[in-house]
């Protein structure tokens, strides 16, 4: 049996890109991540999107706060371990000022995880975000990604909310560590 039996033939990263495009998302803050590889590529190929590679995820809170102050919308692409790096910036900048925020988080440490060092932060990710009063929705299957990202984008930018879409490891496929 294939390890990723639920990875059906639907190009969900392209669907996310289309939602970002449709909503005039201009600043793409990201920490390179294999789960977001295709989406990063789609965005890089779009001359209307400004790619900002971060040294650590918490820089994304500052960047996207500044973007909004200047009238641009953005998104933060990262992995679940990066949520741990963001906690104070999320609380003391994003939440403290009611900045809109959309985070698209690829999950590690759950579905068929090979690396035990990824498990604790993966298990804590949703609880940490909830503790900060951030709106969190999980996507388990490819067919729900587009609608979910669209809805959380709306919640973020129409209602000044901090939001996170967790893209499950079952959806993105577990990392194999094979050549």
């Amino acid at each position, binding site marked *: 049996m294939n390890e990723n039996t639920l990875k059906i033939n639907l190009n969900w990263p392209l669907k996310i890109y289309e939602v970002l495009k449709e909503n005039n998302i201009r600043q793409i803050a990201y920490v390179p991540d294999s789960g977001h590889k295709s989406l990063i590529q789609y965005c890089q190929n779009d001359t209307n999107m*400004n790619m900002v590679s971060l040294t650590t995820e918490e820089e994304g809170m500052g960047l996207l706060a500044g973007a*909004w102050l200047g009238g641009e919308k953005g998104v933060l692409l990262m992995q679940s371990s990066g949520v741990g790096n963001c906690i104070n910036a999320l609380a003391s900048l994003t939440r403290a000022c009611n900045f809109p925020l959309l985070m698209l988080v690829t999950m590690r440490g759950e579905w068929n995880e090979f690396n035990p060092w990824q498990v604790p932060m993966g298990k804590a990710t949703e609880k940490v975000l909830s503790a900060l009063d951030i709106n969190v929705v999980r996507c388990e299957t490819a067919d729900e990604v587009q609608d979910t990202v669209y809805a959380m984008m709306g919640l973020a930018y129409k209602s000044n909310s901090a939001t996170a879409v967790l893209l499950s490891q079952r959806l993105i496929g577990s990392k194999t560590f094979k050549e």
Partner: protein
Amino acid sequence: MQNYLLNRRYVVSQLLKDRKNSLIINGLGGTCWDVASLGDNELNFYVWGGMGNSCMIGLGLALSQPKRKVIVITGDGEMLMGIGSLATIAVKQPKNLSIVVFDNELYGETGKQKTHTGHCADLSAIAIGAGIKNSSIIKTNDQLLFLSSNINLIKELTFSQIKINNEEGPLVLPIREGAYIKTRFRKAVLGETALLE
């Protein structure tokens, strides 16, 4: 600690003397009070929290408003906490962003403990190493006046580390309600319609 010539309130007054429509982001603590000491301005985004992110706020703002000058005025402690952001900013090279660090080699708000710059860290060298070519260290009044007369004209990413002494001015605290500071700033920069989107 060395006894540097420049006083922080004099430095901020020179830097922002001809600020025109420049957009100002401050760091936590001392630099926030310094900016506020010149009088309230709706083009100031007063940062009161999220230590280490002032320069990144400046980057996001500079990218979204490429025709406006953006000046980040922060302290050595705040800069050290977000030191990686210099590498992130250098990759983007926004021509309208200037970063100014008031370096008194102390964590002023927490009891004047010595920062890394009081030991051996060289922030302007780190900025050059990160890829910010126009990076300088300022210790004299002539150097300061050169910077202040050019800061609104420079079309290049710049980093200026200004060594300041330990003299403090009167405590001037600006407004601190984050959502209000944000919305007031957006209205001033983008107009009333931005609030109706």
